[in-house]
C-alpha cells in the first residue's frame, strides 16, 4: 500500500502551502501540479491495485485480510525467512505490485521491468 505520503497528505500539503498572493514560482507550481496528479492517480487506481495485491497475497500467505494487514504479514514472512527474497511466486507478486505502484507514482520512469 502506498503511504509516506498518502494521497490525503499530498492534497492537504499542497493546500497548506499554496500561496494565494501570487508569490509562487512557476517551478513550485509545476511541482504542486505534479503532486496533485500523483494524488489523483492514487485515488483513481489504488482501490483496484490494492484488491489485486490482496488477492495475490491470499494465495502466497494462505490467509485472508485487508491489503494493509497482508502487507504487514508478508514483510514479516520475508524478514523471518519463511519466504525467500528470490522465491519465484514472491517475485511475481512484487513485480505486479511494482508495475501498479509505478503507474500511480511515476508513470514516466524508465525502468527495465517489461
Amino acid at each position: 500500500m502506498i503511504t509516506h505520503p498518502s494521497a490525503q497528505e499530498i492534497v492537504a500539503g499542497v493546500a497548506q502551502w499554496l500561496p494565494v498572493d501570487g508569490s509562487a514560482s512557476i517551478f513550485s507550481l509545476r511541482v504542486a501540479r505534479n503532486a496533485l496528479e500523483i494524488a489523483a492517480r492514487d485515488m483513481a487506481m489504488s482501490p483496484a491495485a490494492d484488491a489485486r495485491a490482496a488477492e495475490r497475497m491470499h494465495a502466497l500467505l494462505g490467509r485472508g485480510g485487508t491489503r494493509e494487514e497482508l502487507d504487514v504479514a508478508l514483510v514479516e514472512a520475508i524478514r523471518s525467512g519463511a519466504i525467500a527474497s528470490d522465491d519465484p511466486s514472491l517475485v511475481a507478486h512484487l513485480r505486479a505490485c511494482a508495475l501498479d505502484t509505478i503507474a500511480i507514482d511515476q508513470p514516466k520512469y524508465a525502468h527495465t521491468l517489461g
Partner: protein
Amino acid sequence: MADRLSKNELAERLTVLAPRMVPGAERIENLVRLTGGASMATWAFDAMDGAGTATPLILRRRDRPVEYSTVAKPPLRREAAAIARAVEAGVPAPIVAYVCDEETDGLDEAYVMHRVSGETLGKKIASDPAFEPARGKLAHQCGAALARIHALEPLDGLDSTDAETTLANYERTWRATGNVRPTIEAAFRWLEKRLPPEKVTPRMVHGDFRNGNIMVDPNEGLVAVLDWEIVHIGDPAEDLGWLCTNSWKFGRPDRYVGGFGELDDLLAGYAEAGGEPMSAARVDFWSMLGSLKWGVMTMGMYASFASDPSAGPERAVIGRRLSETEADIVAIIERNAA
C-alpha cells in the same frame, strides 16, 4: 555554523582572498550562483588581475547544516585534500586553488577550484546526439578514474564502512520510518544473503560517483570527477555499483553504466588502470544497494515534508519516488535469478 551571506558580502570576502587564489589577482567579477545542493552552494566567478585577465573559478561552500546521511560528511577541507590527491594521481578533477580558513576568511567551510568547462546534465550525457563520441569512451574512462581513486593513500580521519555496516545502517533508518513495503524488505534480505563472503580490502572511495556528478566533453569524454562530498573508506565495488544504479541513468536503463555505457568497458578501464579483479555480480550487488539507498533516502525527504508541509510539496513528491527503486529492485532480483 554556516552563515547566510548576501551575494555582496560574499563578493567582498572573495575579493580580499583573490590574490591567494590566483597570484596577481586584484578583484573578482561575474559572481553567480550555480546550484544549491542539500547543504552545499556552488558559485562561479572570475579572479581578475591588473591587466584585466580573468581566471575562471568555482567556490564550494557549506551554507546549511549537514543533512541526513549514513556516512558522515568530512569537512570541506578534507574534500579539497582528496581532490588534490586524486589530481596528483592522474584522476581528471578540478584543480583546487585555495582552501578557506574557517576562522579568519569569513566564508565558513569553503574552498575554491579552477573552473573547467563541460556538461554535467545527466540527461544530455545519456541522450544528446552530440555526446555520441563521448558515450563511446566514457565507461572505460570512468573505470580508469575509479581504479586510480581506489589506489590512493586514504586520507586520515575519513569515515569507514563496508557492505554489512552500510546495509545495517540503512535497515535501521528504514525501520524507523514505519513504512511497510514488502519489496524493500526483500531487498534487505536479498543483499544480506549476498554479502561479500571474504574480507574486502578497504579503499578510499569517492562515494557519489554517478552520471550527474561527472563533467563530460561531447568529444573527449570525461573531463572532471566532481562532488567529492562523501569520500570515505569502503568497498571499492561501491563506487562501480553506484555508477550503475538505475536511479542515475536518466531515461536509458538499457545502458548499464550511467545510462551511457556498457559494463565490459567499465571493467576493462578499471582493470587496465590497475584496479583489482571485479566481478559483474559484485557490481550488481552494489547497484542493488544503491537503489535501496536511494529508496531509503526518499523517506528522509518525506519526513522533512511531513514535519513542515507549508514548505511545499517538493519533498512529498520525492517520497513517491520510492516506487522507482522498487521497480529497479524487482528487476535486479529477476535478472540475478535468470
